[in-house]
């Protein structure tokens, strides 16, 4: 199923400067693997050695943080918008 993934500026070197990449997958784990197949090196920036999403990276499906859904098993459907957003410092 085609979904759009918004890539943050620091990772765009790996996506030929594309801000939005279209890919497919039934859940976030699939989407990340598909992204990495097209843009090698991307997944190690987003996930740690155990395959978990890194602490200072947030992934949103239609503005909902996957940490409060099913993490990488969070399902995605046709037309969903996925954003990868590094945590913001401050305060």
């Amino acid at each position, binding site marked *: 199923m085609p979904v759009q993934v918004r890539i943050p*500026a620091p990772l765009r070197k790996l996506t030929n400067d594309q801000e939005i990449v279209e890919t497919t997958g039934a859940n976030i784990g699939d989407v990340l693997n598909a992204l990495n197949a097209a843009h090698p090196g991307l997944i190690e920036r987003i996930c740690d050695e155990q395959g978990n999403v*890194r602490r200072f990276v947030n992934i949103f499906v239609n503005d909902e943080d996957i940490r409060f859904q099913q993490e990488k098993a969070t399902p995605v459907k046709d037309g969903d918008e996925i954003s990868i957003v590094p945590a*913001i410092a*401050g305060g």
Partner: protein
Amino acid sequence: MSEHQTFFSNLKCRECGSLYPKEAIHICEFDFGPLEAAYDYDLIAKHINRKVIESRPQTMWRYRELLPIDGNPTVGEQVGFTPLVRADRLAKHLGVDELYIKNDTVNYPTLSFKDRVVSVALSRAKELGFKIVACASTGNLANSVAANAAAAGLTSYVLIPANLEKSKIVGSLVYGTQVIGIEGAYDQVNRLCSEIAGKYGWGFVNVNLRPYYAEGSKSMGFEIAEQLGWKLPKHTVIPMASGSLLTKIHKAYKEFIRVGILDEQSFSVHGAQASGCSPISEAHKKHSDIVKPVPNPNTIVKSLAIGTPADGYYAIRSMTETGGSAEDCTDEEVIRGIRDLAEYAGIFSETAGGVTVACARKLIDTGKIPRNESIVLCITGHGLKTQEAIHGHVGEPRIINPSLREFEALIANDAAVLESGHKS
């Protein structure tokens, strides 16, 4: 103190340990972890000890070797070394034996602990050649950036939620800073600031200068240890917004042990939040280290209303590592906390101090802080800055004509007069 010796070598990612040069950067390029100043502790241990520190002026800069600038401080040289007050009447009221207030309501020059972080951030900003400095703020930081930048001759922009307390807005405007009010919560202000910091070459004290800025908070911990007679309190209760202050006080205590100024000793750091925005204490109470953002903070404690706390994870880790606990309290409890601190210790705190007192009371009453162990409450900002929060909760003056008869009638039934047995 050597004039031009530096004791911090690099910035280092807190997650993966990658080293970076000491520039205006704050996030690891690889895994987006926060960068932190890395020090040469063995070298520092050779340069400072209790005697050396005691011989220096009473400011936060007496711990210079453990703060991340290259040369001598050029902004905020007078900041810090606020009183540590033994508060016996408040101790009795709360039912504990040994209680101290670290009183940053009288920090110089803007009456909050933020002068500590700004002093480091702007001294470093000058070393890095910035001419324009800026911040995202819930008020206290804006006041401090505005004042210290004015004194240092730097241009400043402060970005704040538009609905802040009036006294905090005036307390920035007066210094001639550019105050930008944002229609939105702090987290939205913060997000905008990180976009601005990426686009303009400005020194944002709590964005691209954050690795330097945050270290300034350690000075509060160093001072507590020194003022307590070179030992640590068994319990330190600290208000949490981003969670940075708590992690840095924890770090300060550990660093003093690391460089041999203190012996190894046990201590706990406890975190305090307002219930209307308590993502860190909620997570800690659930034994989780995943901090769930609060999209719409709702509390009178605006200075702590950060829904997405940048250091939430590390604050939880500090509390867990030291056997500390987290608590939160309602707005009513905050007001009672402010009044208790004023009526029993003579210290007028802003709302965040009310949170600290109220949460300390809960931690004591639930046995998480034993009544016979030493306690320090960190009181971080002055009450004059948030007067509107307690307006209507502290009574009104009684008005009379300038007549002795009216005065005597007025006080005739006052408890103090009846007790003293004074007769006219």
